[in-house]
């Protein structure tokens, strides 16, 4: 037991340590920052997986920073929920960093050290959010990750600074609202510690300041999560940032915000109160439902692959919000499982996007054609698999999280949500098949004949280098594994984290 306590901090330290180390190497060692990032995120990933297994079997771990006990000191809490999110965050970071080996030096030449340092800060901040047991400490980590995020978005093309600025203004409003909410809760309960708050809140009964505090926290963090209609910052930020920045922010940034949502609604407060006392989860669920449709519709309208994926993120975050909105065990399983699945799918898709960009110089869907599948067969296969998973066809991972959400909606007799999930699957089909059709089927209206065949034969295979291909294909393949292993994941990792009141 004693030694395992340090697991919580062992997840957190490598990222921050790596952020410091990445910048100290002389400029001649061009790969050193990359190696640092890969190693530290790999260590954090290993620690997270160990923590995940440990908490699943033996329950939570608490670590008092500096030996100060709460409520004065700050504690790190690793329970099944936070261990799960840690594993998702570090895992995605690990694979995206591997993928960045050749991409980052090309897109931001000479700034690799700064890039990896910032990216590791982002990861560290996100891990801190997930692990901390203190509300104010969470704010600090939130701002650390956000600041790193603004910086990462800003290193893009000409428009990137403006999109980063929009992100910054909106993000700061979100964080400020969060802090305001913390102020209300701290004033009402007298503590910043989540565990204390959770113990005190039920005794308060129907307390208006606590309710206001929760709502401010939820929607402040909802902005970070890009919950509809507060997603205005997302599409530009994702589109204009560099490839690897987007690939690292998109899969995990919004997910960690979803974690705070879950933590606030179901752990800090009494789920019954949040569900029935104030219709908070209902509001979140319906906003998510609208966001699902809205994101999908806008994704269909896009002609740029990266922007399409950005809007698809809005839609997918909606699923998680919808799962929270169901406020039932099945909804919670769906939301958590979808967090994992969507992180893997989105990471994979953004990596594919990077591969395409680095080989063809553009990601304009209108200019995709048949030669893509010959030039980059593995990348396109990964794209297809991820797209199928996004649509939600069995046995890929995407199916199962939607399945739990469908079951949850059915159980709650919420046919609006049910309809939304079904309709959005159709819309997903539309925007992904539009791309797949160009890659695999479209022959520009002409019947496929010998001329096409000769043209195809002339096209050479130019697959990405192994450092890019391995993470892409690995993530795509893991979608199948996650899909087949979903019962295992749900039983061993997700069910233990469901709070008793839910």
């Amino acid at each position, binding site marked *: 037991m004693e030694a395992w306590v340090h697991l919580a901090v062992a997840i957190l330290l490598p990222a921050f340590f790596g952020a410091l180390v990445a910048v100290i190497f002389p400029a001649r060692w061009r790969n050193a920052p990359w190696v640092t990032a890969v190693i530290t995120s790999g260590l954090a990933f290993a620690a997270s997986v160990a923590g995940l297994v440990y908490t699943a079997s033996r329950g939570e771990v608490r670590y008092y920073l500096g030996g100060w006990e709460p409520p004065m000191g700050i504690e790190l809490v690793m329970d099944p929920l936070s261990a799960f999110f840690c594993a998702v965050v570090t895992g995605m970071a690990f694979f995206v960093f591997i993928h960045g080996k050749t991409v980052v030096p090309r897109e931001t030449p000479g700034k690799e050290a700064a890039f990896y340092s910032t990216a590791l800060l982002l990861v560290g901040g996100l891990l801190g959010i997930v692990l901390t047991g203190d509300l104010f400490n969470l704010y600090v980590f939130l701002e650390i990750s956000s600041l790193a995020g603004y910086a990462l978005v800003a290193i893009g093309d000409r428009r990137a600074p403006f999109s980063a600025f929009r992100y910054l203004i909106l993000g700061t409003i979100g964080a400020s609202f969060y802090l305001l909410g913390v102020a209300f809760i701290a004033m009402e309960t007298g503590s910043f510690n989540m565990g204390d708050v959770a113990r005190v809140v039920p005794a308060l009964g129907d307390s208006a300041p606590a*309710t206001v505090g929760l*709502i401010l926290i939820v*929607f402040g963090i909802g902005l970070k999560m890009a919950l509809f*209609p*507060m997603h*205005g910052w997302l599409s530009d930020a994702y589109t204009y940032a560099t490839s690897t920045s987007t690939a690292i922010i998109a899969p995990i940034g919004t997910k960690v915000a979803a974690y705070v949502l879950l933590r606030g609604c179901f752990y800090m407060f009494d789920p019954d109160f949040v569900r029935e006392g104030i219709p908070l989860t209902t509001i979140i669920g319906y906003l998510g439902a609208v966001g699902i449709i809205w994101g999908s*519709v806008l994704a269909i309208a896009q002609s740029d692959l990266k922007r399409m994926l950005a809007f698809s993120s809005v839609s997918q975050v909606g699923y998680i919000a919808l799962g929270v909105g169901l406020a039932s065990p099945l909804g919670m399983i769906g939301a958590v499982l979808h967090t994992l699945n969507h992180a893997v799918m989105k990471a994979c898709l953004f990596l594919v996007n990077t591969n395409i960009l680095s080989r063809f110089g553009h990601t304009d869907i209108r200019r995709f054609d048949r030669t893509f599948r010959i030039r980059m067969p593995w990348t396109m296969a990964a794209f297809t698999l991820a797209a199928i998973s996004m649509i939600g066809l069995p046995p890929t991972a995407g199916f199962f999280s939607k399945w739990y959400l469908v*079951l949850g909606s059915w159980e709650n007799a919420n046919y609006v949500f049910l309809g939304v999930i079904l309709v959005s699957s159709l819309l997903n089909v539309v925007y992904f098949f539009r791309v797949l059709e160009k890659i695999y089927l479209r022959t520009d209206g002409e019947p*496929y004949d010998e001329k096409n065949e000769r043209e195809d034969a002339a096209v050479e295979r130019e697959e990405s280098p192994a450092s890019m291909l391995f993470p892409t294909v690995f993530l795509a393949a893991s979608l199948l594994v996650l899909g087949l292993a979903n*019962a295992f994941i749900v039983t061993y990792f997700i069910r233990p984290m469901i709070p008793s009141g839910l």
Partner: protein
Amino acid sequence: MTGFDVPPVAFFLLGAALLPWLPAVGRAGVCVLFPLLALVHVSLLTEGAELAVPFLQYELVLLKVDGMARMFGIAFTLVAVVAGIYAWHMRELKQQLAAMLYAGGALGVVFAGDFFTLLVFWELMAVASALLVWAGGTDRAGAAGLRYLLVHLLGGSLLLAGIVMEVYTSGDLSVRAFAEEFSPGSLLILLGVLVNAGMPGLHAWLPDSYPKSTVTGSIFLNAFTTKTAVYVLAVCFPGWEVLFVCGLIMALYAVSYAVLANDIRLILAYHIISQVGYMVAAIGIGGELGLNSAAAHAYNNILYKTLMFMGAGAVLFAVSETRLTHLGGLFRKMPWVVVLYLVGAAAISGLPLFNGFVSKSMVMDAVYGRDLGYSLLALASVGTFLSVGIKLPYYTWFYRETPRELDAVGKPPVNMIVAMGILALICVAYGLWPAWQYAQLPYGVDFTAYRTDLVVKAIHIPLGTFVVFWFFRHKILGEAKIVLDTDWFYRKPASNIGGLILDGVNRFFGACESGLDRLIVQRIVPPFRNPIKALGFKSGQGDHYDPDMDRTSLGSAVGLTLLVMVVALVLSL
């Protein structure tokens, strides 16, 4: 109890797993040997045997043996063995794999004790059979295979949705008979199964794709998909009155198209639907006699229909041509094929001494008492004899001299003849000794096929049909044309209307189509190009979404955030 309660599908999956590692001859051997082992295994399975594995909070029943399942299982494995012999000369790994998986899927469905297992094998069948259609290799086969797959995925989705609802309302996952009431769940399941059964309106995938498959592919295709659907209907919906009506529609609708069709494999394809119609009608009657007769007819149908498809396949193999208008006079080139085919034709027409007579008489006996339905089924049997009993063999093998371009024809290989011979032998044996058949039926039998009235009827109807045919034989053949079916609705691309506005029907279709076209092109698609504009926001301007034009100002994004916050606070306090 043999103590060896393995699901029969295991043999096929094992065989399929072995195939890629074997040389060509070995593969052909596996395709006969493993089904043969499965056949032995199925026939040794005792009723009531069960194999269940836990899965989540449910229990998946991979094997559940009852009379009905056993009967279908024997038919499926038997036909898989014979089809393996028929395909002995075929060396294409892809087709062999697909065929094994397909047959395995069918057996999996039949012996599934719960709906999840059933669904998994159902989808396996859909994918494997689509591969067989694609194996045809032509562009048409490719397109038809895609349509085929899409329709079946739709059917599978309906089934899945129905199963989810059913499991949720009843909490019972097991495959069982539903009470005759239209709950959304049972209705969706029924629709999903009817897609596979080929209910007119949902059937067009069948005549669209089967004739485009390979020689051997169509042998497998004809046996499994529709008959598994019949099995599921018999188990889940016995005695549902609506099925009786469905069956009548199927039998008559399809036989009319068969009379018109020019391609021999198309004629046979339509006949699958027509014959399934008899079974569905019998299931609609329900009761022990109804279900017995449906099972018997399915069993026999699998045998003689496969035999006939083999005959058609032999023709295709020998002369690479299947249109009646381009065939003729081939009797001397393949006498054995003709004789064996005629056994199958006699069986499907229900002539005494053949197995079709026994089961068809049973079906008619079950339907007896419903005058209109009885007469309509009798009418369908007129069409059956007319199209596959006389028209098809006559124009293929006897009418006029062999056309010159077919003169240098090849001969069908021996293994084809052997396979056909085995099936023909079984058809005759079951016809001569119906008791063998009765013994296999799921329920006890109190029926005598060789009753004077039944025999007389079975002889008189074909006689009358034959006389008329002979009278008009030079007029019936007609020209090389195709006849539109409901697949028109999804096959004809939306852009081409001009050439179609020729007569009333077409004008009607054209109007619907252009209306739809207008609706889609002018109403549904443009809003998706720029949703911002479609919703009337000021910033949306162009026809296509443009991130720069449609970017909202920072102020409005802040405003939205505040709005959400205020609304949430107001709602909560």
